[in-house]
């Protein structure tokens, strides 16, 4: 058969496309369970962190999750749990970042005065810039922060913000848009929890 002929070209293209895509779907199928498992653990871990529970490297996340959220209700917008005798409201959030959806979990004290914990589950922000919202220093800033009137993710200035009572956290250098998005997402979520709680009480 002529190597530059139409039929040969079509046959080779179809066979190679089929073969490579087939191999890909095999690889995808083989790792699917593992990926879903990772996703589930990431979410469970996020709930624990948001509830203010210390998550260490070698603890069994699933066991801890089941002890802390025995009545986990997937239909509800928020979960309540008791951590060290204090009621905590934990709620999953999602909103628009710079490039795509940011999802995560936020925990608040029952009176909605302070943030207990904040964890990102997924985002597609720029690695090294907006992607730094997933770094520990950024996320732990929210822990204990006064948020009755919402929070402000600050730009500029130097020295950083260490006061947990002013409702302000440090933004990320070079990622103002992502920092703004996080501020909007968190404030919307706090409002949402407020109205949900108001609706049921």
């Amino acid at each position, binding site marked *: 058969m002529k190597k530059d002929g139409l039929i040969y*070209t079509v046959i080779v*293209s179809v066979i*190679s496309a089929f073969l490579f895509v087939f191999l890909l779907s095999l*690889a*995808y199928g083989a790792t699917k369970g593992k990926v879903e498992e990772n996703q589930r653990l990431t979410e469970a871990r996020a709930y624990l962190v948001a509830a203010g529970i210390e998550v260490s490297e070698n603890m069994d996340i699933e066991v801890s999750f089941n002890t802390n959220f025995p009545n986990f209700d997937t239909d509800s917008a928020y979960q309540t749990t008791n951590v060290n005798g204090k009621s905590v409201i934990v709620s999953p959030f999602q909103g628009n970042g710079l490039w795509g959806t940011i999802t995560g979990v936020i925990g608040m004290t029952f009176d909605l005065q302070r943030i207990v914990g904040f964890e990102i589950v*997924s985002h597609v922000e720029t*690695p090294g810039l907006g992607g730094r919202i*997933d770094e520990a220093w950024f996320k732990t800033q929210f822990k204990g922060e006064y948020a009755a009137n919402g929070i402000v993710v600050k730009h500029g200035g130097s020295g950083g913000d260490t006061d947990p009572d002013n409702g302000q956290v440090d933004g990320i250098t070079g990622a103002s848009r992502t920092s703004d998005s996080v501020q909007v997402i968190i404030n919307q979520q706090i409002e949402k929890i407020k109205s949900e709680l108001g609706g049921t009480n």
Partner: protein
Amino acid sequence: MDEDSPVQILKNNIWYSNPIFIQILGICSTLAVTNNLTNTVIMTLGLLFVAAFTNLTVSLLKNLIPRKVRMILQTLIIAFYVIIVDILLRAYLPEISKALGPYVGLIITNCIIMGRAEAFAQSHGPLISAWDGITSGLGYMWVLMLIAFVRELMGFGTVFGITVLPAGFTPWTIMVMAPSAFFLLGTFIWVAKTIILRQEGGK
């Protein structure tokens, strides 16, 4: 010396025709990932893997592939390996996969891979092509690591996330942002070219 000997290929890809500062290929990612050494290492390892296997596969299939659809099939092969890398990261290194996000997918558009497949693998044997892919990846890696080292050190005061500069150090914001990669790359090309020209002049 034989142009196609393994040693000469290594030398060329690492220095004399380095993909970054001589061929100026694939520099888009120098801007993006090099403000952090850890991300840079993973990204360049991903590129090395994809370049090696793409070259190997293209070289193996080169006699079967009709010239007309050569490029599109190369792209298919590259995309195949990039998605494999993405799947593997997702399954076994979820943290890294989360940190790199969309950049793994962007390896597809890295010109080094396509460039080497077209310029080398199309006309050479499978093993030597794979070697060319590996050494191109290494040439890419060391330059990017050097840039990332300077950017992370000046931008955050850290190396691989470990603080090395004293607490009083004021981070250079510009080093975190994309433009600093241009400044550093430009400076780097200047230095490298000067050395190469001096070597040639000395012959």
